[in-house]
């Protein structure tokens, strides 16, 4: 007990409760200073930085291809999206053509990881709300999705799959067989999952009108992704600034109304359905052919790039500057950081019991916040 710096915590004035970071099990180290008045939260200050790995600094001086596994670890729930941001940016400035089949494989895997990320979020929500049967059903579906990702890439969470100019390996015939099996069962099982959350009175009454985010705050804090769409604003990088093959595929963007926790739940549920339809279209249209264009003079590139994509948490952007094939500077703009700030605005006026529910409803990935 001597090592603990209790004095540091007490020195911050005006806050009544401190929720410690290790309190939250399964990967959520964020501390919270809470100020109360008559049982209602009037001020909240998130304490983060417990997971700072310094990826942006570690990557400096590396060759282009060697940096990809490090950039994987930025996002723990869907690791393929930071890879894609990195590779798309380099392909844009150095004018490398990507084969059409590689583009289809990329989008299919991105949407698969979007489903797995949202299912992980649902398990966390079920854990906080205390619905144990829904937690187990969510984990069962997530295992099937992760099995598919593993068949295609070789790893469950950190694929290291996308390369500059294509993808690392082709899809095996076994993957397509397994995918067809999965696709038949998933829609039926997912409809059952919906009943656990959206047709359950206890859940709906708990989440309704809880943690409402105002549109003004959302604009000031630059919120993107499902949390913004829950307010009713249709903004999606996949349609506004298309990349890959999203312009050839038809899909809807699910939108909420008020911006409370229930709307966030509905929007993410709708996104899972839409991404299953995107994957099925991508497999239907997928052509045969090469999967990667090799460029020999990759070690002589130099220049600056900028790129952004729609990852499951929001808009993920990167700025890369390269000198003779080596990274000199990397800057990552992660959506989860803005979501954490949005949480500190949305939670005002609620009671202490609802803090955990609102925090999980924003889908914050702490690896992304701290980098």
């Amino acid at each position, binding site marked *: *007990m001597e*090592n*603990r*710096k209790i004095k540091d915590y007490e020195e911050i004035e005006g806050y009544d409760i401190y929720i*410690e*970071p*290790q309190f939250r*099990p*399964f*990967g*959520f*180290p964020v501390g919270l200073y809470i100020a109360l008045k008559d049982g209602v939260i009037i001020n909240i200050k998130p304490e983060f*930085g*417990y*997971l*700072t*790995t*310094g*990826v942006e*600094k*570690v990557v400096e001086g590396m060759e282009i291809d060697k940096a990809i*596994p*490090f950039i994987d*670890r930025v996002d*723990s*729930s869907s*690791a393929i999206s930071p890879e894609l941001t990195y590779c798309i940016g380099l392909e844009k400035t150095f004018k490398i053509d990507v084969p059409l089949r590689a583009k289809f494989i990329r989008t299919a895997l991105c949407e698969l990881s979007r489903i797995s990320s949202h299912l*992980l979020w649902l*398990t966390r929500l079920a854990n906080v709300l205390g619905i144990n049967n829904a*937690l*187990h059903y969510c*984990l*069962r579906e*997530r*295992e099937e999705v*992760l099995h598919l990702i593993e068949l295609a890439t070789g790893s*469950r*969470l*950190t694929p290291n799959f996308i390369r500059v100019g294509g993808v690392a390996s082709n899809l095996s015939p076994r993957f397509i067989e397994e995918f067809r099996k999965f696709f038949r069962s998933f829609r039926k099982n997912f409809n059952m999952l919906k009943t656990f959350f959206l047709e359950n009175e206890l859940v709906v009454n708990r989440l309704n009108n809880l943690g409402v985010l105002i549109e003004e705050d959302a604009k000031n804090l630059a919120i993107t992704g499902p949390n913004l769409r829950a307010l009713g604003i249709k903004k999606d990088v996949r349609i506004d600034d298309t990349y890959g093959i999203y312009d050839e595929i038809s899909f809807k963007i699910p939108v909420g109304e008020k911006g409370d926790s229930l709307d966030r739940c509905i929007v993410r549920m709708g996104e899972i359905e839409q991404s299953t339809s995107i994957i099925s279209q991508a497999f239907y249209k997928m052509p045969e052919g090469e999967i990667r264009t090799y460029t020999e003079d990759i070690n002589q590139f130099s220049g600056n790039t900028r790129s952004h994509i729609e990852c499951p948490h929001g808009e993920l952007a990167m700025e890369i500057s390269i000198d003779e094939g080596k990274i000199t500077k990397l800057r990552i703009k992660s959506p989860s950081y803005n979501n954490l700030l949005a949480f500190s605005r949305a939670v005002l006026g609620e009671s202490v019991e609802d803090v955990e529910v609102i925090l999980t409803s924003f889908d914050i990935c*702490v*690896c992304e916040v701290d980098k």
Partner: protein
Amino acid sequence: MKILLRKMVHKVRNFKKFSLFNKLTNWVKSTSINIYCFTSGCCGNEILAILGPLYDSERWGINFVSSPERADVIMVSGTITEKMKPILEDLYNSFGNEKVLIAVGSCAINGGPFYKSDFVLKGVKEIFNVDLYVPGCPPRPEAIINAILKYKDHFK
């Protein structure tokens, strides 16, 4: 009086060490084990997967508890930074007398891919004595279950 008391305490401690009581606790630990999980990063997602129906950990008697006082084993996973260090030390001190620690993932073993970074500790072994290592980045759920089961066999 003081000397008598000391003798009494010594006797009680010896009784605990070599008696039926110790055998009983070991037998309990060999069948069911309580684990406190200190997670951060992607290893936490894999430990969450153990709870699920596919790897169903409770059939082997692996329970996750939410306070270190009730746990037999503390499981540390993910990157441990300088900012995290005082919190982890506090947790370790509030843990019971027989301290057992399992390090999961290459970040907890030696810093992993970020061993060059200034913020990251090069493994839990810098602070505490580690009993078991589970390598992998992140390790598969089967590997984590295998490690816990091996630890349980130690008590038989």
